């Protein structure tokens, strides 16, 4: 029995026992993953993780109770646990008050998205990696996963999502904290593509052998590569685009929402579900729209709305958790080939690190440069730079100090594996700015 059949069979068992007037929602978040971490181009830890997290919500009128429970995948055992769970949730539901913000999908919309690619052979990939990195001080992480998401309700809606993916995220160290950071991610593993990226890392390492330049605090013209932009937008996503966060005045984009600030009109952000890799349905059974325009022509256009916020604030559902899963920043007209020339003199920043808000009300973010960041003079890369702290407002960097966005964009799969392997991604250009404020 496939996992899909297992999930729908269990869901059916639950539905068959639903009481008059009762609505049941079933969900599955599961992964079958190989995880390998490497240090000094050797294997530090290698293993396999299989987990099946089943969720059940039992609703009667406006009362409801829900739970997540780890299942084993064996039908008889899981059926017994499911029925026990149902009984426990009904008992809990009976003593709870009515929930004014309960909302779940009542319009049936079933879907199925199963990627056909075969999972890769992880041990062979690890051998290929260590061979390609022979002689390098490589430290990194390889994850190949089959990710599953399922939804079923007692209104006969069925949704299934199944996708293999891999992420190989690594750094090749020159010395101390100087390294070339690389990532190869996707669905179909191509050893030659990995080797090309490894070769590029070898070439970039040569630049890192030059003595690093110590930068003084001050304002610098800077190019932020897509991976650096991703860090700025990941921290912005902590409440930035959330309707609830905006309505409770906690979003860093409040001044944008109130029209007191505007960004450069070239800044366009979209939650682009259609182009992303996340499931197209939510845990309450809502189907996500193809795209949600978040910022258009530099102005806040709309927000991400969960089922609960939808009920609280009266705006249609368009998201699971009000944090982007498929964030898309529109490209500009700056050719990647012209970046160094346009930068002229300043910082070429490949990676930022440990960003956080230094003033949330002003969308001001602090963080560190990391890995391979370079000093550029006269359009030529001169030397790596010592790590530096920046502290600046994105109202300025994406507003009056924005010089350009690259034509080319990177599709960045989220390699996060907290609890389970993430299904989020971003598609981002590089950004050229004037006067990035470095403080320490």
């Amino acid at each position: 029995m496939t996992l899909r059949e297992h999930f729908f069979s269990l869901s059916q068992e639950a539905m068959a026992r639903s009481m008059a007037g009762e609505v049941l929602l079933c969900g599955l978040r599961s992964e079958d993953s190989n995880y390998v971490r490497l240090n000094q181009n050797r294997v530090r830890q290698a293993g396999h993780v299989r987990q099946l997290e089943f969720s059940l919500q039992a609703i009667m009128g406006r009362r409801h109770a829900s739970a997540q429970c780890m299942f084993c995948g064996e039908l008889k055992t899981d059926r017994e646990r499911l029925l026990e769970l149902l009984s426990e949730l009904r008992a809990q539901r009976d003593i709870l008050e009515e929930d004014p913000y309960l909302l779940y999908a009542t319009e049936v919309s079933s879907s199925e998205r199963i990627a056909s690619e075969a999972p890769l052979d992880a041990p062979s990939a690890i051998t290929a990696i260590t061979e390609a990195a022979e002689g390098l001080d490589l430290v990194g992480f390889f994850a190949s996963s089959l990710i599953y998401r399922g939804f079923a309700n007692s209104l006969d809606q069925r949704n299934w999502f199944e996708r293999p993916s891999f992420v190989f995220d690594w750094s090749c160290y020159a010395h101390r904290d100087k390294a070339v950071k690389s990532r190869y991610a996707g669905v179909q593993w191509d050893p030659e593509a990995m080797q090309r990226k490894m070769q590029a890392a070898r070439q970039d390492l040569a630049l890192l052998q030059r003595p690093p330049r110590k930068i003084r605090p001050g304002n610098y013209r800077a190019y932020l590569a897509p991976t650096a932009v991703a860090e700025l937008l990941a921290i912005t996503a902590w409440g930035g685009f959330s309707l609830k966060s905006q309505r409770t005045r906690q979003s860093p984009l409040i001044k944008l929402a109130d029209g007191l600030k505007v960004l450069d009109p070239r800044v366009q952000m979209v939650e682009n579900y259609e182009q992303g890799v996340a499931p197209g349905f939510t845990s309450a059974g809502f189907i996500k729209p193809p795209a949600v325009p978040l910022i258009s022509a530099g102005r806040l256009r709309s927000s991400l709305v969960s089922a609960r916020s939808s009920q609280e604030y009266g705006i249609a559902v368009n998201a699971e958790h009000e944090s982007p899963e498929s964030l898309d920043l529109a490209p500009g007209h700056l050719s990647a080939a012209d970046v160094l020339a346009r930068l002229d003199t300043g910082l070429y920043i490949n990676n930022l690190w440990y960003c956080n808000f230094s003033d949330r009300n002003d969308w001001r973010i602090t963080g560190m440069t990391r890995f391979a960041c370079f000093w550029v003079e006269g359009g030529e890369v001169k030397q790596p730079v010592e790590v530096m702290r920046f502290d600046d407002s994105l109202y300025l960097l994406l507003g009056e100090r924005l010089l350009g966005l690259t034509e080319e964009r990177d599709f960045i799969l989220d390699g996060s594996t907290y609890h389970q392997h993430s299904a989020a991604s971003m598609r981002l250009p590089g950004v050229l700015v004037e006067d990035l404020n470095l403080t320490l």
Partner: protein
Amino acid sequence: METVVQRFKRVVGGVDHWSLRLVEERAQRLAVRQGTLEPIENQWNSGAHITVVKGTGMGYAATSDLSQAGLVEALRRAVDWAQATASLSLLPPDELARPQRSGSYRSPVRRTWDSMSLTAKLGLLHEAAPRLKRSDAIVDWQASLYFRATQAILVTPECEIEQQFEFLIPGLEAVANRAVETQRRSFGYDNGVQAGLEYLDEIGFCDQAERVGEEALELLDAPNCPAGTFDLLLLPEQMMLQIHESIGHPLELDRILGDERNYAGTSFVTLDMFGHYQYGSELLNVSFDPSNRRQLASYGFDDEGTPAEREFVIKQGILLRPLGGATSQRRAGMAGVANARACQWNRPAIDRMANLNLEPRDSSIAELIGSIERGVLMDTNRSWSIDDSRNKFQFGCEYARFIEDGELKGVLRNPNYRGISANFWRGLSAVGDASTVKCMGTPTCGKGEPNQAIHVGHASPACVFANVDVFGSTG
């Protein structure tokens, strides 16, 4: 769980060494936001983590399938990885730590979570939450309780270790707003403990709500924190973050050995510094202490099975030993502490800081304030950022007070400070006495590949640092 252990012992074989870590967990989060009960989060989580050594290779497999077939399959996966990486392994198998003795541990709980009905617990939250809303300027407010009970068994051919934990984390927060100025004040999220519901009475949970709401309002009207070089008085609610980021992480031995360079980062500390490096002023004494059972990260054994004991990592400012478990200690050839921990059954053990505490000295809070001519008191972390070597940091707090001529003055908003770890601790100029100590902690310290978020504890007195770069908002 004993059934699963017996089931596993029946099927395991054909390997040179094995260990089985079984974890069963129940968690519940209750929250009342703006007078409305939020959906209750109920979680049950159980699974097995199997590690094998075969020849020169090591592999692991973690599974939520605890049936015999599931364990056989996981064992096969672990052996496959051991064989596939036998010629590629960073460590020789004899460097993998093996438990030396059996034992047990249990959290000290007087009033269990289940001794109070769900209705009564929700009643408590309904009592606390409205006390946060001190005026219409409080635009969002919430009271919450998080409970987690974990039972973990570590079994090897020679030993069996059983540990039972119960965690309780209370939470209160109030968000105040006027126009585009928003300020948040919170209590409790960094006060997690291993204890029962008796802890709520000890901290006066409901009574704290009014203070939290009032202070959120005070912040709205407060002036911006001034910029300049000041003496800085950090309360335990911020000291925990300062210890965590700029002592705890840089001393983790796996970082020093390079395992984390691709993600969490490296360390400015190197192996040759231990035994003589002046980490801070001679007022600085820091202990790894898993023996204070109320603290969030206390335990009897780490997840490699090493008995956990209190050790000084810094004494009179001198760096003594790293935070590294038995496996890392063998790699480094250096004594460490019992801190190899996994966040769940589905992750392997790595070096974590567990309870890392700053030892009190002899100054009362009044004496600490009285010693400052011109300074700033900061309370409760709200922003944290530090470089990947754990040196250049910038931290922000929820709440601050100005100190002038040895007296506390007005409230300040948006307080931030920055510095460099290697210099900052040498500026430690006064350390509070036991009356200023609080046991703090966080359940969400992130590290590792695959990623792991785990609980850590930090007990600290209030401390004064000389000549710190302080600043507020520039917006």
